[in-house]
């Protein structure tokens, strides 16, 4: 049986307005609604589709974060993942810490494929997949918009979204694949899926037991909200609009 590892990160809901905490270098988290990082949702969907396409596959999802992160893992289980690993920590986790923790998890089992988001929508670093591939000495295929695993699980054909077009590459397995937006459209967790998810195993791993040191290499110094948009204006006529577009906005 092949195993696919899918890391899942919890991030603030993109539909919420985030506020900056008084310390000025983090966001306020007390009333935040957490969701599965959308790129990770795409990764879960892809792994589940590979499984549903008929191969004998186990999809394992893993998350690093505070206790409440179990909810995001449960969502992934409801979408069709088979079991979950929850690495519990309240520590600050940057891409460097994350990739070392994920490497330790990867080494605990025999995985043929890691599918993960190309980036998380909170820190937008776009590094963990690449760092993990380097650390494990595995091939990487980033920004995937199409993924085909060979029948014998020795290689995968990946179409990548590169500047100005698409590139199709072949990687030997095991490999790290990071997902881009167009890889698939993730499903809604179905009600029977959610009910079943409750009974699926979720192993809790204490971070200390992994022997990974977590001291972030990147420190956030300051955060600023985007500049407020100034109010629009109403123009009196089409002629006035054309004039403004030409002479003020200089777009025509």
């Amino acid at each position: 049986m092949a195993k696919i590892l899918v890391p899942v990160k919890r991030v603030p809901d993109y539909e919420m307005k985030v506020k900056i905490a008084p310390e000025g270098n983090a966001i306020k988290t007390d009333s935040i609604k957490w969701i599965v990082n959308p790129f990770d949702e795409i990764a879960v969907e892809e792994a589940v589709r590979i499984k549903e396409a008929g191969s004998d596959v186990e999809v394992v999802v893993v998350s690093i974060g505070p206790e409440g992160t179990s909810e995001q893992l449960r969502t992934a289980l409801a979408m069709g993942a088979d079991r979950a690993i929850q690495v519990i920590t309240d520590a600050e986790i940057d891409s460097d810490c994350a990739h070392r923790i994920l490497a330790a998890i990867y080494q605990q089992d025999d995985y043929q494929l890691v599918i993960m988001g190309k980036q998380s929508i909170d820190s937008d670093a776009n590094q963990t997949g690449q760092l993990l591939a380097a650390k494990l000495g595995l091939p990487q295929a980033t920004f995937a918009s199409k993924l085909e695993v060979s029948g014998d699980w020795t290689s995968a054909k990946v179409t990548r979204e590169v500047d100005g077009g698409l590139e199709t590459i072949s990687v030997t397995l095991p490999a790290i694949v990071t997902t881009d937006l167009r890889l698939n459209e993730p499903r809604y967790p179905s009600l029977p899926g959610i009910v079943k998810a409750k009974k699926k195993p979720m192993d809790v791993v204490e971070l200390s037991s992994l022997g990974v040191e977590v001291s972030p290499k990147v420190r956030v110094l300051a955060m600023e909200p985007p500049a407020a948009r100034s109010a629009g204006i109403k123009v009196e006529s089409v002629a006035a609009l054309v004039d403004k577009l030409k002479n003020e906005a200089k777009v025509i």
Partner: protein
Amino acid sequence: MAEYSFALSEEQRLIQESARKFADNEIWPAAPAFDRSGDFPRDLILKAYELGFVNQLIPEALGGAGLSNLDTALVVEELASGCAGITTSCVANDLALIPIVIAGSDEQKKRFVKDIIAARKFASFCLSEPGAGSDVAGLSCKLEKVDGGYKLNGAKQWITNGGVADQYTVFCTMDKELRHKGICCVVVPADAEGVSHGPHEDKLGQRASNTTTVNFDNVFVPESSRIGKEGEGFVIAMETLDITRPLTGVIAVGIARRALECALSYACQRKQFGKAIAEFQGIQFILADAATEIDAARLLTLRAAWMRDNGINNSLQSSMAKRFAADTAMKVTTDAVQVYGGYGYTKDYPVEKLMRDAKLLQIYEGTSQIQRVVIARELVKAAAAKES
């Protein structure tokens, strides 16, 4: 029994979230077109079917989602915030199948519930008649004994999904004089000889929900299609409605919540006299009352559902919930149109549809008057029991 608690479990939050996403992304954007055309949103409802948003209360073993009444209520509020008409058509399947789940034999549950769900088919609950609405026991659809079974004759009125269903759960009488004691429940396939339905009704609101008459002309019903004993039909119908009444209540909550969300956002944007109208106390009081009453309606309906889950008789509480939620939805949606002013009165904005949709909540599954009749009866019964 759970202690007093207002916290949702992780699973309940996931269920609610999944339904909310489906309502916001799939139902809400599609609803205006179906409202206008009155077409049945088959593909959308089949998508909901796949996700378990249809047949939520039906046990897992029969192919349903197997949710509790409370969990179903959480889901239905979300769906209804997308479109009440589409939600009514989704919930109608539960309504039609519950009588079989509560009173059918194992063989009947397989044939009339499991097989129907597996084939993603629709079923309708046929109780109301042209001459018998609130007075259910006065129904006159006639069931006569013949060799090997029965012959069914009569007409049913206002049947949700009547024109799209593959199977009807029909309440009929062997002797009208016996009133509720003569009523039976039978299951009839839509393609049985002598079964027909009328055209889709041109309704004020909930126009996406299919509503027709259903006619039975000398339809043969084998004995194996009777649910429960002869004369048990009334009890089966009432028990079914006891289960679904809180759900009808949350449809009202879903509509009202959407209306308030729309009104709030509009009130913050719309400027008159140099300020957002949300800054006027006259508008603020409308919004404040709406928020308070929606919350009260939600709590009443969730309590009624919770009582049912815990095996506590909820006749009084589910009638209170349905009545209050329906009347709240009517008031809140009317006020939402008021907040929008002239814009609210046009189909360019969403609130007039919410107002039209809300009206039905005061009518079906027992009118607001009938709920008051039930509430008063329960109160008097309890008081009399204390006296004696």
